[in-house]
């Protein structure tokens, strides 16, 4: 079976500027893959090449084995995309837009799926409105409905939660997990790293057009972050010198411990005893910390 998405040595130049620089990654069936990177990193450019909106300068992209340049129509049959920017549709209503979009994917009669999506995305009461009459969050939901009319097996979400309130964000991610449970593969970009951490099985971190790191979310966090252990002591002690110590103030000590070391390892190497510890707080590294480390920024 060919991979839902395979990106090999992808290059995209806009004039003299290289926006995507030899990017390679693959997406496995039924996984959620996060494409993370700061503004201008090249995420939307990669997505636009997958959807054939932009032509690659070099490299190859295939969707379920279909090359997006040579075999683009077959590649797009199983592909759904939620673009970063809102799309307007002039005089057409939500329901008409979904009907047309189904047709572009080769489905003339699709009322059942359209009704399901309108219901599921809380757009049912708005189905006779035009895009201009919708709120920002409704417009996003319409984009998501459009992307799903033809039941794609690979879904690309380019910042689907930009400008969306917390409640809707949570319900959208819930929906994405439902889709994953049905075996749909998802590629998403987002600037909310906390959400990416919860949601993504694997992530690729991209910066200035280059993939810096690809891997399972949890192992990336392990590799690039450290545990912070904060100890509150009963009695103040003389200044401690220890290679993991990052901060000491009054009776508080903060250590940064490699992810594979624990509180026990720490205590066995300090010269004060358990009895003196009043409280211990262990803070795991986050994807955000890993992200900053990979990009070479100071961690918070």
């Amino acid at each position, binding site marked *: 079976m060919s991979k839902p998405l395979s990106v090999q040595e992808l290059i995209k130049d806009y004039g003299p500027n290289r926006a995507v620089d030899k990017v390679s990654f693959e997406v496995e069936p039924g996984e959620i893959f996060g494409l993370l990177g700061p503004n201008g990193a090249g995420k939307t450019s990669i997505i636009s090449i997958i*959807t054939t909106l932009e032509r690659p300068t070099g490299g190859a992209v295939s969707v379920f084995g279909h090359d997006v340049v040579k075999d683009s129509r*077959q590649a797009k*049959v199983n592909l759904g995309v939620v673009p970063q920017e809102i799309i*307007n549709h*002039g005089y057409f209503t939500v329901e008409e837009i979904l009907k047309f979009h189904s047709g*572009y994917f*080769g489905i003339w009669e699709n009322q059942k799926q359209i009704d399901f999506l309108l219901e599921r995305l809380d757009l049912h009461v708005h189905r006779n409105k035009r895009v201009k009459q919708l709120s920002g969050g409704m417009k996003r939901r319409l984009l998501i409905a459009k992307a799903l009319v033809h039941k794609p097996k690979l879904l690309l979400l380019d910042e689907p939660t930009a400008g969306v309130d917390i409640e809707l964000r949570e319900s959208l991610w819930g929906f994405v997990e439902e889709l994953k449970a049905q075996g749909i593969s998802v590629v998403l970009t987002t600037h909310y790293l906390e959400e990416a951490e919860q949601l993504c099985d694997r992530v690729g971190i991209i910066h200035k057009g280059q993939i810096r790191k690809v891997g399972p979310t949890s192992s990336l966090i392990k590799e690039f972050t450290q545990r912070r252990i904060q100890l509150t002591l009963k009695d103040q002690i003389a200044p401690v010198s220890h290679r993991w110590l990052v901060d000491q103030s009054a009776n508080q000590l903060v250590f940064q411990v490699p992810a594979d070391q624990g509180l026990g390892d720490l205590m066995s190497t300090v010269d004060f005893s358990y009895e003196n510890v009043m409280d211990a707080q262990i803070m795991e590294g986050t994807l955000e910390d890993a992200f900053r480390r990979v990009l070479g920024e100071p961690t918070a």
Partner: protein
Amino acid sequence: MKTNIQFIPFAMLLNREIQRFMKVLAQTILTPMMTSTLYLLIFGVSLGASIQMSSGISFLEFLIPGLIMMGCLNNSFQNSSSSIVSAKFGGDLEDYRVSPLSNSQIVWALSLGGLARGLIVGGITFLVGEVFFYSTTGAWLNVHSWPIFVFFLAIGGLSFAKFGMSVAFWAKTFDQMSIVGNFLLLPLIYLGGVFFSLEKLSPFWQSVSKFNPLLYLINGVRYGVLGQADVSLSSCILVSGVALVFFHFLALRSLNRGSFVRW
């Protein structure tokens, strides 16, 4: 859920194109009704009464087929070009590209959509013309050959819709769109013998006019309605056939080369 990407994407886009102009019926139908009424009133009835045609037909008879074709060409061009320009602004042009619609499906759907509007406007102009003809002569104008009449309307409308697509894909602004419309299309249509017969021109301008492809499209329709025209039927068929093929490939090429990314 039956999926067929060979025919349905095209059919749905054509359906969308037709619904698009049906939503603004005032613009698509009332405006051309108004213009053709005015033209017929001013040129056909009041000024035309004093114009003598050598071939034994009245000026009103001469004018009606020209106006029908002018309305058809103009509206076919307008429909496909404005559809693309507004889709470029709205971003829905991206929808065409991210779906399995092929470029030739897009070209055919938009050109048939443009033709549909062109035929409606041409039909309305025909009806208004009939009313004028009846009120001045007391008889209806008989169409000489419906197949020839409809053939030239269809070829002309399709060609112009394809031309409109090419221009809309190329244009970066609304200004550029209207420059092509006002400085290229309008003169060619007006000088293509809508309002006057070649025989009224000096030999020099007669030969210049023969290079205007619009002359053949318009006279093809005139032949279909009246059974006579300024140029031969075979030259009309030849030129309009070439125009259709040329504009088809021009439109395809602008889609293949152009960008579907929003402005």
